[in-house]
Structures are given as C-alpha cells and as structure tokens.
C-alpha cells in the first residue's frame, strides 16, 4: 500500500513539475540544472567536469536539490532518456560532457524547445541552428602550447646537462584517435616545445580509445624505447604518466595534475576548467538572455588553466616562460598556429579549407587561414586543426 502511495505521489509530483515547466520565466528558487556525465569521478575526464559543475553550483549558491547529476550515462539512447528525465524533473538547462552524447542531446533539444541543452565538445550547434542547442569548448590549444614550452625547456636542460645531443631531442606523444581534437592538441604542444627547443621532433602513437590504461601505458613504453626523451598524452587514464614515472622520463600531463602519483617526472598539466561556461550558461537561463550556439573561451576567462609547475621535475625558469607566453597569447601578439612557425609537406601554408561543418562525407568547407595564422576554434568551438605538419611522425593512424 505504502509503495502505491509513493508511486501516486511521485507521479503527482512529476505532473506538477511538468505544469511548472510551461511557465518560461525562471526565478532563483525554482531553477533546476541537470548534468549528464559519461562516467563518474573514477575517470579523470569526467572528474574534471564534475568538479567544475560543483564549483559552479557553489558560486551560484544553488542547493543540491537544484542541481541533478546523472553519472554513467552511455553515448546512446540512454543519454536521450536521461535528458528527458531531467526535463521531467523540472530542469530548464541541461549539460552533457561527452562527445558521443551530442546526437541524443540534439534529439532531446528538438523535443523540448523550452529547455536549454548545452553540449561540451560537440560540433553541430552552428549548423543545426536550434535556438536551444549549444556547443562549448575552450581554446585548450593555448594551454597545450604553454605546456609545450615547459617541455621544450626541459629538453634544453637535458641537452645542456649532456644527457643527449640537440638533434636527439625527440618527444613522444600518446594520442587517442587521429581526430582533429587530438591533432590540434599534439600540434600545439609540439609548436610550444619547438618555440624554445628548435631541434625538437615528435613521434605520436595512437591507442584507438579515449580511455584504456593498459594500451596507453604500452604506447608510452614503446615511445620511450624508441628514444623519446619526454612524453605527453591526450588520453584519459594514468597509463602514460605511470609508464613515465617507472622509467624516469619527464611527463607533461593533461586533464589535471598527476604529481601525486608521479612526483619525480610530472612537470605541468593543462586542463579545461568548465566552471566559467557553466556559470555563464546558468546565469543566461536565470536572466533570460541568449546562449550562443558556440562558446569558446581561453586563458583570459579562466577556461584554460595550467596546474602549478612541479619544481622538482621542471627546468629552471619554466613558470616565468609560461607566464610570459601566456601574456602574449592573451594580448594577441602571439598565435599558436602562426604559419611562419610550421610547414606542411615542406611548404608554408597560406590557405586551408577545413571541415568545420560536420557532415558524413567530411567535406572541407571553410577557409581558416587569415592574417598569417590558422584560426582555431573561431568558426566553431570544437577544434578542427587536422593538418599533419613537418617534424611530427605518426607511428600508426587510427582512421
């Protein structure tokens, strides 16, 4: 009997929420925010999003009842159902954190026009043109570039110490897929390193998975035995940092500090802080203002951050060099993808048509080189730099 009453009450509650949902004005008290996460805090990728969501909740003074977390939501129909369930619970803005959630978020956005759907790392908001579906990213390539400077300085220090010669300064990079986001990441990292260590080269090994600890460890170990003097990665497990710590090879990390697990080899890590975006979008719903189809901010707004430099492993003067370059990037006097700093197939680029508008035929559609640099994340928030520049060797391709 009790169960039946619970049930009836629950249904009644939902119906009353649905009734509330029709009133478009949102006051402070009944604002509800939903979050959809691919995994839970056991994944460094999702932990980064969850920490940002908690920080935004605190800054905006929202209670736990107003912020609903749905964790372990796969990239399938479950994502659509999770979003719809959040709408039923009265959420007027819903965030999702994984790339593969996008089509299901889009489906929900079409069904619930009064609710804002904000999808991180997605690519289709600017072509779908729905008023309530939005993409967001951060200009993480700037963070990667700065982390690359730390790597280049470390290489220089090792060269000066006589550990190897200048032309042996090879970097190893563990990547997930041969996909624009990863290519943009390792290229900006490499350009950062080469800006201070001109003889640096790089080898990239792909794993074909966003999260596979064993494969990432294996890839890093392979790169080290290939003669790579420093490792960085774009994959979400502790595989590569652990391999580096075991081998005593310096590591530049991603998604957050790995200093605790790798005290002797961790140099610095770049990461995206989603708090500014979450705050911005939630405030927009509160105030009834518009959220842009694409939102991409960087160092200036605190969307791209670097962890503290580990003095034990980093070269002297690393923090100063990072701060100096960061100031130049912010001022716009320095560009990560300056066409004067790289060549493709031996030639400098003055034009490139990138595949910015997502389609199944992968048609290149938009000119992205202007004023002497590649305009990354400006035509849409998610990266689209997919050029294979000279100096970087891909050991395998996941395509």
């Amino acid at each position, binding site marked *: 009997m009790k*169960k039946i009453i*619970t*049930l009836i009450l*629950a*249904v009644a509650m*939902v119906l009353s929420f649905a009734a509330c949902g029709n009133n478009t004005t949102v006051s402070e008290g009944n604002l509800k925010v939903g979050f959809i996460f691919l995994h*839970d*805090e*056991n994944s460094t990728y999702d932990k980064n999003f969850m920490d940002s969501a908690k920080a935004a909740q605190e800054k905006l003074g929202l209670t*736990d009842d107003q912020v*609903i*977390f*749905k*964790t*372990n939501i*796969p*990239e*399938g*129909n479950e994502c659509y*159902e999770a979003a*719809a*369930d959040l709408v*039923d619970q009265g959420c007027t803005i819903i965030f999702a954190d994984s*790339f*593969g959630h*996008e*089509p299901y978020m889009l489906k929900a956005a079409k069904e619930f026009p009064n609710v804002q759907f904000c999808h991180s790392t997605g*690519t289709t908001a600017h072509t779908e043109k729905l008023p309530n579906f939005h993409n967001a990213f951060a200009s993480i390539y700037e963070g990667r570039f700065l982390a690359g400077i730390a790597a280049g300085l470390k290489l220089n220090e090792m060269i000066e110490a006589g550990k190897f010669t200048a032309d042996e300064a090879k970097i190893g990079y563990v990547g*997930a*897929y*041969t*996909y*624009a*986001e990863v290519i943009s990441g390792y290229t900006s990292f490499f350009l950062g390193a080469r800006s201070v260590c001109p003889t640096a080269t790089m080898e990239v090994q792909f794993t*074909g*998975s*966003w999260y596979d600890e064993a494969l990432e460890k294996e890839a890093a170990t392979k790169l080290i035995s290939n003669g790579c003097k420093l490792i960085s990665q774009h994959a979400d497990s502790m595989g590569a940092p652990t391999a580096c710590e075991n081998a005593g090879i310096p590591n530049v990390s991603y998604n957050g500090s790995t200093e605790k697990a790798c005290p002797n080899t961790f140099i610095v890590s770049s990461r995206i802080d989603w708090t500014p975006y979450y705050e911005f979008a939630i405030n927009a719903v509160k105030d009834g203002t518009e959220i842009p189809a694409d939102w991409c901010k960087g160092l200036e707004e605190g969307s791209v951050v670097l962890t503290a430099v580990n003095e034990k492993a980093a070269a002297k003067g690393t923090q100063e060099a990072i701060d100096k370059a960061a100031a130049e990037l912010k001022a716009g006097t320095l560009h990560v993808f300056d066409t004067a700093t790289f060549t493709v197939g031996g030639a400098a680029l003055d034009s490139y048509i990138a*595949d910015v508008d*997502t*389609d*199944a035929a*992968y048609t290149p559609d938009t000119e992205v080189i202007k004023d002497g640099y590649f305009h990354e994340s400006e035509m849409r928030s998610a990266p689209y730099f*997919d050029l294979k520049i000279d100096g970087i060797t891909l050991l395998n391709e*996941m*395509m």
Partner: protein
Amino acid sequence: MNNILMKIQNPLFHITKRASIVWWKAWIIRILAVVAALLVSGIVTLALTGLNPLKVYSTMIEGALGTSRRMWMLLQNMAILLCVALAITPAFKMKFWNLGAEGQVLIGGLATEVCMIFLGPNLPTGLLLLVMVIASVAAGAIWAFIPAFFKARWNTNESLFTLMMNYVAMQIVSFFTLLWSVPKGSGTPRMLEFGQLPVIGGQKYLLNVLIVAVLTIGMFIYLKYSKHGYEISVVGESENTAKYIGINVKKVIMRTMLLSGAICGIAGLLLVAGTDHSLKSDTAGGRGFTAIMVSWLAKFDPIFMVLTSFLIVFMEKGASKISEVYRLNASFSDILTGIIIFFIIGCEFFINYTIKFHSKSEEVRK
C-alpha cells in the same frame, strides 16, 4: 557380556535434496529471502551512508517506476534483456553454454547498420525494414552457428569458443565504428537516419515490447509443446539417452544454436534500428551475460523470465536513481544490487535442499 556404551559424534546438521516442494512453500522462502535482503541492505546503507534505508528504497521505486517515461524505459530495457535471455535459453536448456550472446547481438546490429547506411537511401522503407530483419537474423544465426558446427563436428569447447567470438565481434564493430564515424576519426558512431523502426501508438518503445512479448510466448510454446523443445530437453538431460532414442544430437545442437543466434540478431535489430539508431562496440551493454542470470533464475521458463528480467532492470534503474539523488558513487548502488541478487539466488538453495538439524550426540547401545 558387558554392554558397552558408545558415543557417536554427529554433525550439527546435514543437507538433503528435497524430492519436491509445494509451490507456496517455495514462494514463502523467496519472499523471506527478499525481506532478509532488504534488512541486510538496510543495515549496510545505514552503516555506510547514514541514510534512512526506507527513503533509499522508495527512491529506488521512484527511479524505476516514478513517471510514465521511466516505466516505458523500464519496459524497453526489460524487453531487450528478455529478448537476449530468450535467445540463450534453448541453448542453455540443452547444456550448450552459449556465452556468445553479446557478440551475436552485436553482429546482428552490425548487419542492421550496414543495411541502414548503404540501402537506406535507395530502398522504400517497407522493403528496407524487411531486408534489415532478414540480415540481422541471418547474421546472428551465422555467428552462433560457427561454434555450434565446431562443437558438433569436432567437439570443441563451446564456452571458450562462443566467448572468443564475442571479442571478434567487438573488434569488427569497433573497426567499422571508427571507419564510419562522424566527424572523421572521432570514434563516434554515425547516426542512422533511414530504416528506423516505426513508432506505433505514439509510443517509441511499444513495438519493441510487443515483438519481445510475441517472442516470449513463442519460445514458451516451442520449448514446452514442440518436438524440437522435447529434443532439446532430452539432449540437455543426457546426450546418451538422446542418442539411444534416435535423436540426432549434432543436428539438434546446430539447429538450436541457429535459433539462439537468430533471436540475438533480433535483439541487435531492436537496439540499432529501434532505440539507439547507432552502433558501438558496447551497444549490447553486457546483456549477453546478464541474460544468463535472467534465464537461469527463471529455470529456463520464458514466462518466469519476464519476472526475473523485471527484477534485474528494476534494480538497475533504482540503483542509478540512488546515485543521482544522493550523489553517491555508483559502487554503492552496485553493493545493494549485489546483496539483493545474492539473497535471491541463494534462496533457491533452500528451495532445492532441506537442512536437518540433529541433537549434538546420541547414545548408541552396542
């Protein structure tokens, strides 16, 4: 002669198999098991989180059945899990351990996806759907037939063989997912626009539920009243008896696995064309293994499997609601699910066996 008094030490209790048990006694044991499970989970909840267990339980119910959307979602999940369980049941009943349902579902799904991508733009919807059904059923059946053929022909170990076939299927699906991913190279599967199963009665999942309902009744009749069903039971009980009464065991094995794989193929079809409209290597979501529990708990009775699949999906939905409402890590709800399922499986022991207690010792006069 003097009488010698001897003391014989008896064990405290001994266990004997019950010849039979009245149905209501069996159900009393089951209900007691659920009550005991709830008590233990309640204590664990209180000890680990300090939350009121009754509130936690009502959260579970609300999470699984709280809204009509959640009820539909529950039905949809039940339907798919039940479909896979129906598929493996005939194989398990003849003691052919088909651990390869996961792969058979995936291959069925892949066949569906191929039709949706390459034939989708060119065929009229009705014909496309027909081709998809044939392709998914055939693909699942072939995938299951391979280990069955090897078993019948060379007596290979079917557990290992079917298990390995899962990994082969997963790798094939991963390969094509990456090849066809949109955007390029992201590893994110492309959305399939053509050939989505029709929505009937305004309910997205109604068709799936109806298809599986029909399959359930069909499987019940097939196992209980058909000659094939009888042959499966005999082969399961004793291969030698089957041979003695003239059953072609090899033929039964291959035929049953074709059926098993075909139904897995349908599950793949329902997942790819009916709900997800995309395919990834984890689309089957471990159902190939969970289905074994569903089938076994129901003692291979398709009608009871409706209940057991409800139980498993209910626990799953309820558990994820717990982590949502109390912001607890999913591990906590897994612990609760584990405790409850442990008790439910464990109580079958007391249904099949009886425990007799003895007084500590008895005096025997010799």
